[in-house]
């Protein structure tokens, strides 16, 4: 029932990686309570779907593949009926599919690498969200997540993006997704980061912490949005 959309009109911004990581982490945290997660793959390359079909993928992740412009709204609505969380991995292009998915989101995670080209596309995506908010007359919560960062230091470009977002009142995740072998390894070995064998993959522990921090911040943002929605409803009443 909570819809999280990963958006960027550029490929390679980290949407699929972030989507897989969050799906895996939410599935891990919700396993005992049988909380179901739907993963909608609306990217024609179907990389999220390939991971979800591998051995080791948590059993409480339900995959919906080959979602398209025509089917995306139905796919989200159907997934909302069967799952507590719906995660949508979109194609890295500026398309109507992105626009439709954003319109259903409880949280849009707009992705960007610390690069000029990525930031240009990030701005394009945020402009779309803001136009939709205006047209629909309701807020569409969105935050920027910077991916493929260096864990040791902030690059000049990374600082520049943070500054640009601050100047334009755009919320940015405190955490970033670092460039990590473990994030790529889940596509090779299947499953989630916590299940990787540290003998096979380096930096599993730090990668696990990175994912937990990301998931914690997503939850915090969703909680804050719920509170402001309730306050808005009360004000309307």
């Amino acid at each position: 029932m909570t819809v999280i959309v990963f958006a960027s009109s550029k490929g390679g911004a980290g949407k699929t990686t972030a989507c897989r990581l969050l799906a895996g982490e939410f599935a891990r945290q919700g396993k005992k309570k049988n909380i179901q997660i739907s993963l909608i793959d609306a990217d024609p390359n179907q990389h999220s779907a390939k991971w979800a079909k591998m051995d080791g993928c948590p059993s409480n992740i339900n995959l919906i593949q080959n979602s398209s412009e025509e089917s995306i709204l139905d796919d989200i609505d159907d997934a909302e009926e069967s799952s507590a969380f719906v995660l949508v991995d979109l194609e890295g292009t500026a398309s109507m599919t992105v626009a439709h998915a954003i319109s259903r989101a409880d949280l849009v995670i707009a992705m960007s690498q610390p690069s000029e080209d990525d930031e240009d596309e990030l701005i394009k995506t945020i402009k779309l969200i803001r136009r939709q908010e205006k047209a629909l007359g309701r807020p569409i919560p969105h935050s920027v997540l910077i991916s493929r960062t260096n864990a040791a230091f902030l690059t000049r470009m990374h600082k520049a993006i943070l500054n640009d977002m601050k100047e334009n009142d755009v919320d940015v995740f405190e955490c970033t997704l670092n460039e990590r072998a473990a994030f790529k390894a889940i596509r090779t070995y299947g499953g989630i980061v916590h299940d990787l064998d540290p003998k096979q993959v380096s930096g599993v522990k730090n990668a696990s912490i990175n994912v937990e921090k990301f998931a914690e911040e997503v939850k915090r943002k969703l909680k804050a949005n719920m509170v402001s929605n309730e306050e808005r409803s009360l004000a309307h009443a």
Partner: protein
Amino acid sequence: MPSTREVKHFIDDDIDLEDIISKPKTRKRSSVERELIEEAAHVSNFPSREPVKKKIRKKSPYINQKNIKMRFGMSELLADLTKHLGFSSDQETIEVALGALIDKKGLTSIKEQYLNLINS
């Protein structure tokens, strides 16, 4: 004693997933909302990437040509009649007229041939 020490970290994750599941939405899809979303998408350069469906022109059943000479003004009369009767073409008017003539003269064997042609 374990060979490696457990790393302590500072993540204050006290939010249960159950606490952030939003209530079922009552939002209903409307064509107005769809139009607004699509308009915002167009302005933002997020166009449709669906393959454009080719418009296939309906094949005309009138493919055999018969040139007949008419009295002066008959061609215009036929056009006026077609317009008056609300038919889509002069061919249709002629076909209906032929059908009516066959009925009036009671030509049952030709009627069958006529219907076969019309319905094919």
